[in-house]
């Protein structure tokens, strides 16, 4: 069942369109990430869903009921949407426990539930602290507990991990995922970090130029991006020219098997081909068949390495990105041979 549905949403600020035509379905119990570069309108979309802003056009429904649309505008306080903003936004004048109980009726504010909730987010026993006595990660945990306290129909997370350092981010991300699952909550996470989106969410919606360019499961998004621009946005991508034959495509990396893309009917002819960096093998030049080139740049990441290789013959071509596990022991400037493994994705050029 669809918990949140956004259809044809538009929003402009001072005549400048921010959201032009957003469609988004969020199934009940799922965690959907809205991924987009900064300035793509992610936060605006979230604020409209939360009820802090109103859409210029289109509709937002929550559990089947229209909350924003022609003739219906449910104010934020009546939507029961848990909101976890970027910096936590704890009320500085209230203790942790009072923050968590803020949205509850007066008689429930001192109940045991709050203690349980704090235990659940790993903040047990810290209920009497004030926000300024907490670390950034702790503040985020309290903000999440506060949002869950009102038993929301939907939880919105606005780049909640952005201000945390990398190690903490991974831990908290996993905790949040677990807590949302336990609560059976439907959640929407806004982020500009593709790693975060791919690793945390069930579904990822890519917001670009005011529309949802693609909404799919993380793996589908990575392996079957709707267009070359998306391919480059989600992960690293080599986009090479090719000519489509009957059963394979001819590229500088040789003939490669083709995967059909989203049921698109590809006719033979010139195409753009996506070869992911991990689809290319690299070896020292040894005279075997393949594309010869030279290493022009080398980035070592520990678990893997990214090598940029400039093809030797066609000097006008951009360097190809190759990912090797572990690392590559060849120095910059060494001649190498590249082999690609299919199947690859192709779009008409």
């Amino acid at each position, binding site marked *: 069942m669809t918990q949140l549905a956004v259809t044809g949403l538009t929003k402009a600020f001072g005549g400048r369109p921010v959201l032009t035509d957003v469609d988004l379905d969020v199934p009940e119990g799922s965690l959907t990430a809205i991924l987009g570069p900064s300035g793509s309108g992610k936060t605006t979309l979230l604020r409209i869903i939360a009820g802090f802003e109103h859409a210029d056009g289109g509709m937002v429904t929550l559990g089947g009921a229209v909350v924003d649309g022609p003739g219906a505008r449910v104010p934020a306080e009546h939507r029961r949407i848990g909101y976890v903003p970027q910096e936590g*936004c704890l009320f500085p004048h209230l203790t942790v426990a009072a923050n968590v109980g803020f949205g509850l009726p007066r008689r429930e504010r001192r109940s045991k539930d709050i203690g349980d909730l704090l235990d659940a987010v790993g903040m047990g026993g810290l209920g009497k602290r004030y926000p300024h006595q907490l670390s950034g990660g702790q503040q985020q945990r309290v903000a999440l507990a506060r949002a869950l306290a*009102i038993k929301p129909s939907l939880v919105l997370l606005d780049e909640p991990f952005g201000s945390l350092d990398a190690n903490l981010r991974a831990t908290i991300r996993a905790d949040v995922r677990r807590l949302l699952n336990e609560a059976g909550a439907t959640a929407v996470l806004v982020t500009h970090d593709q790693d975060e989106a791919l690793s945390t969410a069930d579904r990822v919606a890519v917001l670009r130029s005011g529309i949802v360019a693609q909404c799919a499961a993380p793996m589908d998004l990575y392996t079957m991006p709707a267009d070359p621009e998306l391919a480059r946005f989600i992960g690293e991508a080599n986009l090479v020219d090719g000519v489509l034959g009957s059963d394979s495509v001819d590229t500088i990396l040789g003939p490669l098997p083709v995967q059909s893309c989203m049921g698109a009917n590809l006719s033979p002819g010139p195409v753009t081909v996506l070869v992911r960096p991990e689809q290319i093998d690299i070896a020292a030049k040894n005279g075997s068949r393949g594309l010869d080139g030279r290493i022009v740049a080398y980035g070592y990441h520990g678990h893997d390495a990214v090598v940029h290789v400039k093809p030797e013959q066609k000097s006008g071509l951009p360097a190809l990105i190759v990912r090797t596990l572990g690392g590559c022991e060849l120095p910059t400037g060494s001649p190498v041979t590249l082999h690609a493994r299919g199947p690859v994705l192709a779009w008409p050029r």
Partner: protein
Amino acid sequence: MASSQTLPRSGTPGAPATPPAGRARRAQRPVFLIAASCLVAALLAMPLVFLLFEAQGAGASAVSHLIFRSLTANLLWNTIKLTVVVTALCAIIGTGAAWCIERTNLPGKRVWEILIVVPLAIPDFVVSFGWASLWTWVQGFRGAVVVMTLAVYPLVYLPVAASFRAADPGQEEVARSLGVGRFRTFTRITLAQARGAILGGCLLVAMVMLAEYGAFEILGYQTFTTEIFGEFSLSFSVPAACALSLVLVALSLLVLGGEGLARGRGRVSRSGPLVARNLPPRRLGKATLPVLACFALLVVLALGVPVGSSIYWIFQGGTHALSGVTLPTAALTTAGYGIAAAALDTVLALPMAMLAVRGTGRIRHVLERSSYLVLAMPGVVAAFALSYFTEHYANGFGYQSAPLLILCYAIMFFPLALVGVKASLSRAPANLDDMARSLGQRRLAVLLRVTLRLALPGLAAAFCLVFLSVVTELTATLLLIPTGAQTLSTQFWAYESNLSYGQAAPFALVMIAIAAVPSYVLGRFFNRSGNVEGISIT
């Protein structure tokens, strides 16, 4: 890779999808806030409207004849000469003191910090009385320069000290690392960072100079304010008072505009994270003793002389020729007016401050600017306009009544309240409101449980600021005080004018004592918030 063009893009292709800077916070127009602010703005504009109305009544030719006479030129020269000299001296003393206290290892900083600011609680006319009653040379221009500088330099010190505290210390370090010497770093970075605060302080000083009456009257120095007061309350020449008021308002507007121009578009920002890291204090070394001596001298002159002189006159006793209200009665009356005006102002400032802090768009700017017009209304002009209007056009309704006086205070000190309330509301950012609403709280509950609760310390500061100003106000009080009633300042004035210094002195001391408490509270508030914009008006 032409295929990116084949994307099914709806809407306007190529249109920028970035939200506007500052991300509009409120989708719906705060209609109630705007309406309330408009009402307040109308109230504030009242004296100015009345003044124009009265000028109209007096006849344009009569008024213009009165404006273009040699007396006006004389007054203009007197006023400008004094304003420029005192403002410059205050800028030097205030900035110097602030730098020594905030940036050097001056011994006893905590004590100096308080002693330096206390003179703010002493009314200018009491400082003037303190000096002029002891030494006869304290008269005219020379006397006015000494007295006014000592009375108002804290108006520069406070914002500049706050800006030194808030300034990014990293900028100085970067400048030094780029090979810029100590002195050049001071002029190019340190002073530049404090520029807005210095200008803001100077603006306040200049406005005080244009509005001051009591101190100049005691010193026998003639400015626009003393002349307007005389024309209106002694000679009952309304057209002349009108004409001079118009010139004074124009002069004030000129000062306001000049400050706006000088401030320019540059903003002092702190680009790094807001950590409470401070530069290691500059070692004074051999200069320690001379600097300490300067501070001691300043405190003796600004604080010791007025207070000491008042105590001296109490022990001298003197003629008891005049009868007046008792000290407790006057103190109660003063406190009553002060509390009423401060409460009224705090409430009046709320909608406009809310709009200024939260709102967007042009209406907000227009309304906020309109409140600055009040700054250009020296107390004597506001009081004159209100009293003459109620007497002659409103059939005497409200004339010389306590509500009219309180209203006049509220109008005069509105900008102060607005500054305080604005500073306090900025501690309750809008996203906390959004947060509270998403947790199911209605707007009223949000206002009470979050916004006002967070703003409370600042609201108290705004209240204190207005209360303090009312306690030490003389000019408008003299013109509008209900018959038979006396405040501390008017009773002091009555005794002082009669040369009954022994009787006047206790009133001065009580005034200082009452005003010192809110001053201290204020100092604490602005120290902690480190709000540079907090004290400077704009």
